[in-house]
């Protein structure tokens, strides 16, 4: 269902029926196989040196904040308050491991209920986005009906609509439905498709050769079977990308939980993290950093586990064509 549970099939499966994907995949793989050739992007020794220097300096810039937050999370309150994130703890005995259990404890962040809430919301969101966006993408890609292109344009143009325009009436709507302080206002919209992901699915489905579908139809498959048995298994990379991006968006969402969730039992991780901001200034910055590390950990792990989908699969899906 989600990328974490059943890793989508590798790109090679889709490479066959879709020429575009094949080209992209080939470009990527030849790139990896011919490091010395001076093709497009091929480089001489001095250029490589320059590039490595640039990349290394950049990497430091990108990694340093992580270092600060992790380092800060292992220091005492006094050290953090004095702004000392730079020097590492002097010895292993100075490492304040207890910051973590203290930050996550029920009287602080109350981590575990918040984690469960966030995971439930995130999982339901991911499933909802994959199912609804693929259904709609399939509808737009493989059926002819009046107003199809108009509707497609309308859908794409809703991407331009700032969320704030609809925020207040949508809030009133969920209030009328009695769904305030439940997860529904956060989950239901995810089951009603979002334009960008629909676009990605549509582009992907549109590339699948008609002969494949015809063959399935002759075998007696109906629209639903074609969608579920033929189309969905082919679009592993798109599913992966949609899942990953939905995961990140749902995991880090702040405004919607802030507005819709009230009871402490319903808090998500971002709300719990925000709760560290004390009444009279940040007197617990070290604990806050520990909590921040725990909150971002799943995102980082997810990235490492799924990075080839991030990096390679964007090419295979939608955006290119």
């Amino acid at each position, binding site marked *: 269902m989600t990328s974490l549970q059943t890793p989508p099939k590798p790109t090679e499966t889709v490479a066959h029926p879709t020429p575009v994907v094949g080209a992209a995949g080939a470009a990527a793989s030849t790139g990896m196989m011919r490091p010395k050739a001076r093709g497009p992007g091929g480089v001489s020794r001095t250029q490589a040196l320059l590039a490595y220097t640039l990349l290394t300096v950049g990497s430091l810039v990108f990694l340093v904040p992580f270092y600060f937050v992790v380092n800060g999370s292992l220091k005492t309150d006094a050290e953090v308050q004095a*702004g000392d994130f730079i020097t590492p703890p002097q010895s292993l005995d100075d490492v304040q491991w207890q910051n973590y259990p203290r930050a996550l404890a029920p009287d602080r962040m109350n981590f575990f209920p918040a984690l469960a809430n966030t995971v439930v919301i995130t999982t339901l969101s991911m499933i909802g986005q994959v199912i609804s966006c693929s259904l709609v993408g399939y509808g737009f890609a493989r059926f002819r009906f009046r107003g199809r292109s108009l509707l497609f344009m309308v859908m794409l143009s809703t991407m331009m609509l700032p969320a704030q325009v609809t925020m207040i009436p949508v809030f009133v709507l969920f209030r009328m439905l009695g769904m305030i302080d439940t997860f529904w206002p956060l989950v239901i919209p995810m089951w009603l498709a979002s334009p960008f992901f629909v676009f990605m699915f549509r582009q992907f489905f549109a590339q699948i050769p008609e002969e494949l579908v015809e063959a399935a139809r002759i075998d007696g498959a109906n629209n639903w079977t074609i969608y579920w048995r033929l189309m969905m298994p082919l679009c592993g990379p798109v599913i992966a990308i949609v899942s990953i991006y939905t995961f990140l968006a749902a995991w880090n969402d702040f405004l919607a939980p802030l507005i819709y969730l009230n009871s402490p039992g319903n808090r998500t991780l971002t709300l719990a993290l925000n709760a560290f901001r004390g009444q009279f200034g940040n*007197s617990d910055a070290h604990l806050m950093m520990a909590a921040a590390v725990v909150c971002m950990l799943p995102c980082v792990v997810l990235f490492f586990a799924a990075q080839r989908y*991030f990096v390679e699969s964007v090419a295979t899906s939608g955006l290119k064509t």
Partner: protein
Amino acid sequence: MTLARAARLLLGFVALLIVVWSFFDVGYRALARGRMAQERPITLQILHWGNAAEAGVVQKLVERYEQDNPQVRIIRIHTPGGDVEMSNKLKTMLAAGTPPDLFYLPPGLLPEMAQMELIRPIDEYLEQERRSGTAGFLDDYFPIMIDAWKYDVDSQTVGRGKMYGLPKDFTTAGFWVNVDLFKAAGVDVPYGGWTWDQFEAACRRITSLSGTSGFEGRKIYGGFFQLWDATIRNILWTYGGEFFGRRPDGGVDFRNVTLDEPAALEALRMIVRTRINEGIVYNPTGIAQDGGQEFINGNIGCIGPIGRWMVPTYKSITSFNWDFVPIPYKSKEHQASQIYYTAWSMTAGTEHPDESYKLMKFLCGAEGAVMQSELGLAIPPLKSVAYSPAFLSPPGIPPHNAKLFLDAIEYARIPQVPSQAQWRRILEDRITKSLQLGKVTPLENVKEIEAAWLAELNSPLRQRRWPLVRWDLVLAVTAAIVATAVTMLWWRSTREQLGPLDRAQARAGWLFIMPWVLGFLALTLGPMIASLLLSFTSWSAMTTITEARAVGAANYRQLFAADPTFCQSLKVTFYFVALAVPVTQLAALGVALLMNLKLRGITLFRTIYFVPAVISGVVLAVLWLQIFNNDYGVLNEILRPIAHQFGAEPPDWFGRDAARWAIPAFVIMGLWGVGGGMIIYLAGLKGISASLYEAATIDGAGPIRRLWNVTLPMLSPLIFYNLVMGIIGSFQVFTQAYVMTGAGPDNATLFYVLNLFRQAFEFHNMGYASAMAWVLFLIVLAVTILIFRASKNLVYYEGLKT
């Protein structure tokens, strides 16, 4: 490879376990709640703020009460931060139609809530208590604590009228002193009171300790004041000044701002003199810089005027001796202390008023008061507890002169606050201009504040009595338009000649896109129409929508003609968009070009550059808060030596230089997440056919020509896409500003959406906020159309047709 596979499997398994556990946990808790609801038919929601320790005290009281009252289940909702954040949550809950039964009522909210009839007076219950002879506990309250919760709606005055809550606790104000610094400077600790002249002299002597023996390399300041409305008011009082004048009948005249009278100005000038001109009072300007923290670090002589709530924090100070002294005054007759106080109050919407009153009485009772005072946060409002050892000499808790807090009650005063939430925003947002940033004189500043306040009061949206919206008419017209549109569509579709196969296909197509159609109608189109309609009304969202009033185009007129914050937020947002979009896109493109090079280990670099993009929102804000700190922040540590080379100082990002540098700081934060855009460009680069480059090379094109004539044209659709999405996203910045700066200082980071959020969920002008949302939409639309036009000849779509 197999190892990686195993690791991935393990990870997937762990993830699956977590997901399964989460669903079980959430489900189990839902079941438990359901069972609870059956066993305990009465559910009371209570809302409060406070730090972890105070939350613990309330939790204990709640558990005690639930034990004794098996009928009642209590849901305790706790907001971080102070009363402002709780007020926002309270108002959101009111707007959602799910008001808490009881909540911490801060005095600043009393007039507003009472005027809107959102809180319920408890006079009837007090009358009952009197009749049944159980009202004795009322006599145990300090009289000022009873008066403080009375409010008269007609004369808008605190201290008379109905009673709206039972006092939970209160504190008088004074100064906390670092006794060691006073001794080192040879200044007597002024336990018996002091004048402002003595205060300034003491501060000068303490400040001159900086860098002397025993304080090597340390910057010491004599004192520190917070710039809250309450602390400013208190300082004004001690000079004989006030925020507002009085009417002949003794009521407060909120239209008469008296900040420009000599006594008030003298007080403000003292703050400017000590904070900015002489530098003897600490003047923190950046975010994450905090005078309170500097006091704890032992670098500040005295801090005030604030209350007793610092005790739990100061308890852990071991490096110096600290104590409490009265507030300085201009002359003895002006000696004054503001009282800070909180009550448990009942919302008008509570379904269980009797039960709520009972719980309120328990929460404010002696047991809670003792527990609170052991916490050290405040003074119990019950005389019997206040004069008992529980408060005066609780075991091991300094200060040892706690009685000074009680002595201050003699000259304590109740502040008078207007019922419009905007006053505090206007005052606190703008007063920083003179008192913190030193950009204008206090007199100019005060005039500006007065003008903004009067503009708020005189807004036609407040002044005129607008008619109720005729929702029946509105609905009828909307329904007619929708019906006409649907009929036309249906009529057109019947005229088509379709075969049965086409018809089946069309039906199936519609079925498949149904999720989006439903979402579009319910969550986009419908709400858009609704918000357009709302933008012509005035509605607080705390009443039913039938109470909305039709104001015509008044919201829009007000926005463009008379709302300086609207202009400011537009300016801030445009500045951000104009800076962030090109910089971010250029960086993303540049990094993508680098990442497209065929180098060993490039995937590792890709990973490093992309990882920050997965972090956003609150975590990001929390992280960068520390990095941008002016005093300790790492960024300025690095920039300082470089800047010194050019004889300059690094920018005080969110402080003195905020008008110029706060927005670039947000752009820098955004740059850290450049990996997101990079990935999309990288995907595009991978898709460019190698033959194009080969052909170009054969034609003699160098790397720059290839970039200009092959790469950029082929990428142009993606650049265009990223540009449009970047612009749309940049117009909607919210979380970083909300968490990091809260629009300050001097509204330098008042992003459009933050302003909109405040209008909607803080001031509850839903109509006004809807108008703002539509203006934003039209702006984004116009900009997008402009880009579409401009890009027509620049975007090369051939590259797309593979």
